[in-house]
């Protein structure tokens, strides 16, 4: 499943880039994320997601696979499993930072959903992703404004 989100941030590009590349801080900006800890090059944590009566606790890691500040492009990889329902999510997340004050962040995700989580259906999963990204965008704006 491919998802595409754009976030406009009224801040210098270098600040937005720095906020994104501080992976533990960026991970804490994801609504529902908890137990964030650095583990080698990766960040480990749990993402709580709730869809009505269905509750997921996605436990896993996110890491930067590649980055190039000059072009403003980075690729993240996330792997998480949910022990409650039995299922996993694997995602490649491409970040592209363009412009400068306002800076635009494009988040293009290629998400594979394995196991029972898939029974929720793609439209519902995409909606949850929209909600998470909207919360992340608010937190990112607050972070760069404060920093």
């Amino acid at each position: 499943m491919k998802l595409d989100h754009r976030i406009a941030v009224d801040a210098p590009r270098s600040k937005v880039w720095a906020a994104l590349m501080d992976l533990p801080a960026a991970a804490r900006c994801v609504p529902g994320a908890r137990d964030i800890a650095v583990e080698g090059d990766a960040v480990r944590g749990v993402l709580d997601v709730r869809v009505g009566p269905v509750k997921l606790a996605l436990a896993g890691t996110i890491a930067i696979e590649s980055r190039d500040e000059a072009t403003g492009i980075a690729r993240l990889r996330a792997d998480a499993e949910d022990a409650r329902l039995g299922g996993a999510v694997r995602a490649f997340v491409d970040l592209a930072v363009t412009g400068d004050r306002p800076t635009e962040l494009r988040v293009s995700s290629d998400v594979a959903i394995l196991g029972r989580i898939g029974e929720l259906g793609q439209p519902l999963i995409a909606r949850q992703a929209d909600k998470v990204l909207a919360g992340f965008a608010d937190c990112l704006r607050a972070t760069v404004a404060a920093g």
Partner: protein
Amino acid sequence: MRPFEYLEPETIDEALSLLVADPEDTLLMAGGTALVILMKQDLVRPARVIGLRRLTELRRIEATDGGVALGALATHGALARAPEVRAHAGALAATFAAVATVRIREQATLGGNLAHADPAQDPPVTLLALDGVAVARSGTGSRRIPLDALFVDVFETALEPAELLLRVELPPLPPRARATYQKFLPGTLDDYATVSVAAVVATDPGGTCTHARIALGAAGPIPLRAREAERSLVGRRLDDAAIREAAALAAAATDPIDDLRGSAEYKRAMAAVWTERALRAVA
């Protein structure tokens, strides 16, 4: 399905005290038509299920002062047949009669339907257009939640985990009000709607619209009111131009998803078509 504790309280107070003990891991079950499927799919794993079927007072359907109160445990079948419902709005009885199949209708309840908050369901649409208000109770008291504030997102409501839905109250309709529910079913009769529309309008003796409600189902993450479309009708005659304009505004208010019942674009187009048909039925 995983093992769980099953409890059947005899009174509302007993149900609430069981619920408040561990609201995060306890689920209420009315008819069970939605919940049991989620449990069988293993998507929901409550430690405890509180069966509500002994709370017979919540099955009551009563005419109130010009309105009607619908108990949360009334089944769709009972609501479709109730003289009080037919007397208030034939379109509401028809809405309950249009849900799924007879087996579901005799088991599924009003409260279960609302708490499940599936945006493709029928009853919320007509109840929204009739200005329904949900009444819920928790350990600390009762509160009234207008239906347009009850639905928060797909499968999510404003109900707190320790709250029990008691009934839906429908206020009196304005003089000369007409209501309709239109369900677009291109596949089979027992399917979910591709889109559905409820319209309630009233006109003065001269034919000028004095009251308009338009609600849509399967057209977004929640059953929604098309408020701009409603506003566009009030103070006008319900002629072709007014109806077409309202239908376009209603379609613009939708936010459908692509699924096996059609693309978002198709559903938006159908929202206009079926809003137009609904308004012509009551104009």
